[in-house]
């Protein structure tokens, strides 16, 4: 997820309808996250694939497209497909291998239904989650906190720190890591047993680089955010003036 991805996943300008958009998507997400009424047995499109989930998935996509706009919706579906494809295909491959080697006795059609249902669930839940996440104004939230005329309270400072780190990792560190993996991937193509070693080495290298890049500015940011003027203590309307207290 580099800068280019970050820009293409940016929500459309105009923050007035943002709350409505998040509220609409949150309401649409309720059945997916609580199971009602989707788990009630009913008409099935295929054995094991309920029609309720198919209709719900369709409704979710219409809602996300209507609320986010066609351009953002296209990007959301692309990212969702990139997440879903490896899961479904690698899962099906693992399942087939397990059956082929005798580790699993699950019949083939059952596994197919399982992956159809998984694909349907992920095709519904991931666009919903991405639609919700792109609706949260991370970048403007930081600016809003910094420009507060009443100062920045201790909890706001902590929130500011977490937001800054999250933005830095998602939009800067990940772009660098993608480059590292591209440069180092040649080791994975070598024949024989060196592949696993190369994979572990690449994973370790990527993780160390990711951690170092992720934490390198944290001490500076802690000092910077810590030096922001704090919010004044709340006035006590019920307290008596000093001269009255003396009496």
């Amino acid at each position, binding site marked *: 997820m580099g800068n280019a991805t970050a820009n293409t996943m940016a929500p459309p300008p105009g923050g007035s309808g943002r709350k409505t958009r998040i509220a609409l998507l949150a309401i649409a997400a309720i059945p997916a996250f609580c199971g009602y009424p989707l788990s009630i047995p009913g008409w099935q499109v295929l054995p094991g694939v309920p029609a309720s989930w198919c209709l719900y998935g369709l409704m979710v996509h219409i809602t996300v497209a209507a609320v986010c706009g066609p351009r953002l919706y296209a990007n959301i579906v692309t990212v969702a497909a990139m997440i879903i494809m490896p899961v479904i295909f690698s899962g099906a491959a693992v399942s087939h291998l397990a059956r082929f080697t005798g580790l699993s006795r*699950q019949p083939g059609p059952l596994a197919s239904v399982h992956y159809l249902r998984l694909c349907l669930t992920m095709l519904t839940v991931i666009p919903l989650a991405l639609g919700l996440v792109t609706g949260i104004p991370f970048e403007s939230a930081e600016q809003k906190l910094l420009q507060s005329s009443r100062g920045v309270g201790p909890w706001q400072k902590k929130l500011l720190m977490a937001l800054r780190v999250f933005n830095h990792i998602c939009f800067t560190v990940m772009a660098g890591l993608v480059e590292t993996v591209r440069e180092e991937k040649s080791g994975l193509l070598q024949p024989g047993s060196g592949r696993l070693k190369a994979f*572990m080495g690449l994973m370790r290298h990527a993780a160390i680089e990711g*951690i170092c890049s992720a*934490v390198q500015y944290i001490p500076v*940011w802690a000092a910077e955010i810590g030096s922001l003027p704090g919010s004044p203590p709340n006035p006590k309307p019920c307290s008596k003036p000093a001269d009255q207290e003396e009496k």
Partner: protein
Amino acid sequence: MSASEIKQLYRVGIVAAFATLAFLGTIIIRVPIPATGGYFNLGDTFVMTAALLYGPLTGALVGLIGPAAADAVGFPQFILATAVVKGVEGALLGLVGGGKTRSGPRVVLGLALAVAVLAGGYFVFEAWIYPRLGRTIPFFAVTDFKAALAEIVPNLLQGTISAVLAFAIARVMGKFTAT
């Protein structure tokens, strides 16, 4: 601006960084486990590294936030189990082998306990807690004893690979931060 406030902000930043890395590490590499509908991932590497480098509180918070947030993207029924199991895993590893008490044998013992918590914790949730919850809330009716049994080996494998990677990373990072 007090030193304790800066220290607190630094800790918040570290938790946010490792939680985000665990979240990304979990959603980028996902291999499904057919028997249970769960999946194999390497997000544990960051939970274990955080616990080894910064101690139990950071480890617990990273385990609680990062992988559970990743479960919300695609596998929401596992959020509860993941938050509890990985939170405990990070806390226990941090207590035994993390932070300033870090030494070779304690680190290895801590990592072994973390792998055991990972495999055992998911087994308890999937074999007993989820089926009971599923009787009243169908959302949780996704596993049973047989499926939980089938997930022990993949979880042990996931934990072991993550532990090896976390051990290597913590060694390099330990040297890095010491110089």
